[in-house]
């Protein structure tokens, strides 16, 4: 008995490895399709949902998911599916701006710090350390309080929290690439500091940074939803995902779909962004 289990064990393990290997591209395709759907929702919400995300039919309040209302309805009778579709633009655009903000400023700081070194590096990195020292949610909240409420303000607030991660990664990559022979060779063949930096160092350090950007996209969505949940994001009745989860909280005992379905949409978006980030860094390694 024990003999048979022992001999069969390696073969099962091998086949499960094979299965995982085959499943991997399927997961990646699923992630890409899902994100593409989210983008389509954001760009052309009217094509996917015909109702009104703001004004509901009061008599249809708190209906469970059905053929007529895929995601159910909320207390004021608004169709949740319509609200989720129209909400995607708020969440995705805010997340995109946040990531771009972090990417541009973080990579810029990292590039300067990693290539100039010396005092500039020390000063910039201590500033980054300060950013890292403050909890990111607290930092976002303080920035929103300073900048005021609004989509752009939320985006900047979330973006600033990711500057530190981008700066650290970009600096490490720049320092790695800076030590390569081909960078020295570029200087030897007469390249000026800036031209070598832009032509050789930056492009060769960018791949892991792009992978981090995809990862940060997921994190940013989560942060934006969290800020919305706390009431620091878009004001009601905006169909923002985090705000929707917060609004549904009061009905969680009776109407599970109000929090669960937007929650699942957020989770899936984050997971899809993670999967794509992994694919980018894997391709980089290969």
């Amino acid at each position, binding site marked *: 008995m024990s003999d048979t289990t022992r001999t069969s064990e390696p073969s099962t393990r091998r086949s499960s490895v094979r299965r995982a290997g085959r499943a991997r591209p399927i997961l990646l395709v699923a992630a890409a399709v899902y994100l593409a759907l989210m983008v389509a929702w954001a760009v052309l919400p009217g094509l996917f949902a015909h109702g009104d995300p703001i004004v509901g039919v009061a008599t249809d309040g708190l209906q469970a998911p059905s053929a007529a209302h895929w995601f159910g309805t909320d207390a004021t009778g608004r169709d949740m599916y319509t609200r989720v579709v129209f909400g995607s633009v708020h969440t995705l655009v805010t997340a995109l701006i946040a990531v771009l903000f972090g990417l541009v400023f973080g990579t810029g700081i990292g590039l300067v710090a990693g290539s100039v070194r010396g005092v500039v590096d020390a000063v910039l990195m201590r500033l980054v350390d300060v950013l890292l020292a403050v909890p990111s949610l607290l930092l976002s909240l303080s920035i929103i309080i300073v900048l005021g409420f609004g989509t752009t303000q939320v985006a900047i607030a979330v973006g600033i929290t990711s500057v530190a991660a981008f700066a650290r990664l970009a600096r490490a990559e720049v320092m790695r690439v800076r030590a390569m*022979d*081909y960078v*020295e060779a570029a200087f030897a*063949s*007469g390249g000026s500091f800036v031209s070598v930096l832009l032509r050789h160092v930056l492009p060769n350090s960018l791949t892991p940074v792009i992978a981090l950007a995809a990862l940060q996209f997921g994190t940013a969505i989560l942060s934006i939803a969290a800020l919305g949940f706390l009431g620091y994001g878009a004001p009601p009745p905006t169909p923002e995902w985090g705000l929707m989860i917060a609004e549904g909280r009061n009905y969680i005992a009776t109407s599970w779909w109000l929090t669960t379905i937007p929650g699942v949409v957020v989770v899936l978006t984050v997971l899809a962004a993670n999967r794509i980030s992994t694919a980018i860094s894997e391709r980089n390694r290969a």
Partner: protein
Amino acid sequence: MIQKQLAGWNASAPVVEVDGLSIAYSGRTGDTAVLHDVSFSLGRGDTLTLVGESGSGKTTTAQALIGLLAANGRITHGSIRLGGLDVTEWSSKQWLRLRGSHIGLVPQDPHNSLNPVRRIGDSLAEVMNLHRFGNAPATRRRVIELLERVQISEPELRVKQYPHELSGGMKQRVLIASAIAMRPALIIADEPTSALDVTVQKTILDLLDELRAESGTSVLLVTHDLAVAADRATHVIVLKDGRVQEQGPSAAVLWHPQAQYTRALLADAPALSAAVRTSDDVRAQLALSQHAEPVVVVNDLVQVFSRGRTLPGLRAVDSVSFEVRRGMTHALVGESGSGKSTIARAVMGFQKPTSGGILVDGVDMTSVSGQQLRQARRRLQMVYQNPFGSLDPRQSVQQILVEPMSNYRIGSARERQQRMLAALDRVSLPATMAAKRPHEMSGGQRQRVAIARALVLEPTVLVLDEAVSALDVTVQASILELLSEVQRELGTAYLFISHDLAVVRQVAQTMTVLSHGVAVESGITEDVFASPQHPYTVTLLDAIPGRRAQSRAL
């Protein structure tokens, strides 16, 4: 005493019998056969050398003999018998009893082969514990005995040290000690010295020889260096593209080669070829250029590296002076840490020396910076050791070769294109290469591109920092041929930096020998070879592989 408990191991059978062995690696595009119908046998106390270039299948053969083929590797045909046991179909579990106890492995790179967080003594005890050598005190005694055997000083101290506290040569000795711990019948040494300095290489190979003579252990030595094979082996197998080109007793193979490929290899091996020029030729050449100013003058160069506040600075280069004349080659020779690369970087203006002067084509490299330095580099180019690291992986060959010209705003776009193609042609690469990227090329092709990039600006001085050390011997020979052709046609002066004295003898008219940053000897290369003055130079010359075999043959 250690008992050989393995059932079926026959001490009187040949240690290795390989019959018609073929191996294939499976990949995305199907199976790739890497070894075809290889047969040989290795008797007790013999040394068999597998010689070949990268990709010849020599390492695959060695891996198959110890059951460590890569996961996608598979024996498609033939059989392997070790000590009379047919191990062809063995599972990884069966191999465990053989590895370490009957077969010892000495890996290629000692720097990455010891667990950095384990003490030397624990690393050595591991193999003995795996094979139940004995109780703790007995194991400890054996560890000390082994370290003494491989000639490591102060073994009681070493067992408590960590790998980073030991030099490369000492680490390789520890690994040899680990390989012989269980008195194996066979030691497989895969390029055991290619990561080590030449003088260290000699002592390590001597040690392996001694162990073989004293305990009757057989040695399978894998090497790309024909000269090493010539010195050490009783039998030689020459492999190319997974096929045996020639095999037999080493004297027969090396001095009366039958196969075309063996002859080519022998002709390309710098250590086994004779001098290419006499010192009188060089003296005449030097006399001719006497009135002209040397293109590189290094005078009393000192480079001190700070080692923190507590330690005194490290004098990496200590009062070194030499000259390179127009159209000639001067070699800087030394082992790792001798300061030769530091000098190269100072000459290139990448690093300001602590004191001393460097004149390149009349420009003082120690004082220029910014634009002046950029202009000076137009006449001063460099080729790096590793062609895999010196080309930007994102650029095409065309972009690589055009970039220096656009940096100096030379010519129109069309002229640059023409010069790019001319440069490719000069290094004997087809014009179709222009569209390729580095990862699509072989090491030799990449090094040609690196040389083309250096030549496209038509420099007066080319610094070659170990420029052929990472290449296979036939590729090395063709690159050296290319370099001397360029020198003849363009009159470029070379500062040739190398640890390989045999190569230096082929290319350099004059040389400087460096040891720990000090120039211990300099002069005309042939004079130094004929009558070395400094004891360090004598040691270096003695360590050149192939010398033993040559003196035996004479």
